[in-house]
């Protein structure tokens, strides 16, 4: 029996992508089982593996973990990416909360109508450039260090890089005006585990397409009528 963590989700980004990023950043190999049919999902439900009837689910260290934030916190702590004390953890949690909110606007993007997509794209860029990016730009400028918290690589750095790349996919020049974040992006992308994750053939999933949307709708029988922010 393999001791590697095993991820249960669709073959696409969704809520599982941040978990893939963090495991990869920590240098942890993992397996994936992709949900493609309603029957697979019902089998998981009937088997009692989904505490609240939802995915993501990650089998790790004898636990069947659900709830994205719980899973990420566990991985961060286990692999020493959660700061050195309670206060550093507080800062990491705050920063991750912000990038989580930002990525949350992008999460439902593929499910929107074409018209709503344009509206949402503008909303995402506006929030990124007026609320979130300035906050992280200032943090990096104020302490002048390479990493967000405690002069040490942490979950907060991984999450911010993920968010930056996702927003750039919506507007490629979105980092102009944020020199600290440009330097941050280059620095964190060149960390060996992250560099590897950014190369083809890794577990990283592509931008969600219509096939992904159809799969999610078919398996969960939900998300047929999603509105923009």
């Amino acid at each position: 029996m393999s001791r590697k963590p095993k991820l249960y989700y669709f073959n696409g980004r969704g809520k599982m992508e941040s978990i893939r990023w963090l495991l990869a950043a920590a240098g942890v190999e993992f397996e994936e089982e992709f949900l493609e049919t309603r029957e697979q999902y019902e089998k998981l439900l009937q088997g009692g593996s989904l505490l609240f009837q939802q995915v993501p689910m990650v089998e790790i260290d004898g636990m069947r973990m659900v709830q994205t934030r719980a899973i990420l916190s566990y991985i961060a702590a286990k692999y020493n990416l959660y700061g050195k004390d309670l206060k550093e953890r507080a800062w990491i949690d705050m920063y991750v909360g912000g990038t989580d909110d930002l990525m949350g606007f992008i999460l439902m993007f593929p499910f929107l109508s074409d018209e709503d997509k344009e509206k949402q794209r503008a909303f995402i860029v506006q929030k990124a450039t007026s609320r979130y990016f300035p906050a992280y730009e200032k943090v990096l400028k104020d302490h002048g260090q390479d990493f967000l918290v405690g002069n040490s690589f942490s979950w907060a750095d991984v999450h911010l890089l993920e968010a930056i790349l996702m927003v750039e996919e919506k507007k490629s020049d979105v980092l102009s005006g944020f020199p600290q974040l440009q330097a941050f992006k280059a620095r964190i992308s060149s960390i060996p585990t992250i560099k590897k994750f950014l190369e083809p053939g890794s577990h990283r999933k592509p931008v969600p397409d219509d096939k992904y949307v159809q799969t999610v709708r078919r398996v969960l029988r939900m998300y047929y009528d999603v509105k923009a922010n």
Partner: protein
Amino acid sequence: MSGKPRLTYLNGRGRMEPIRWLLAAAGVEFEEVFLQTKEQYDKLIKDGLLLFQQVPLVEIDGMKMVQTRAILSYIAGKYNLYGKDLKERALIDMYVEGISDLMQMILMFPFSPPDAKEKNLDSIKDRATNRYFPVFEKVLKQHGQDFLVGNKFSWADVQLIEAILAVEEKIPAVLSGFPQLQAFKTKMSNMPTIKKFLQPGSPRKPPPDDHYVETVMKVFKR
């Protein structure tokens, strides 16, 4: 200057209420600043106090903390309500996140349009009785202990009692069919710090009314 945590939010439950619950459960006294006007809120932003221009804001131990979950995790960690090791923390996090999904439905309820309210109430009832309450009923039944995790009072217990009471306000008989949760509710309500919080005069806020909804719309108007 007081060493007490200082909470800045509207004078109502919203996203600050779980924080009031957790501080109270931990026996920690705190101060509150209530936002009543857009000008007050704009000033907070202008003065650079809100990392992401949002409240809740909790000033605690020299930090200006934002992001509800970050604040709750910090309080839980500081006051030993977060389990004894990483695995207990994982369980607490899972339980708290699940309950938080249910509480989110209740949070948004006052802001739903009148013609959607009945449907939303049905959704809350459905989720509570078919998804969330059965999980905790089973957890308590299986280990037979008083508390959800590690036979010890934790953040998960506080979050659950808060959720039970909030759902009961909307659906009074919701716990029929959940004997373990009924016993849990009684036990938690009688714990000294929680008992005190449930009495009049505590920082606990009443259910949101029209005045609260109006204030939210006014203060956060874009």
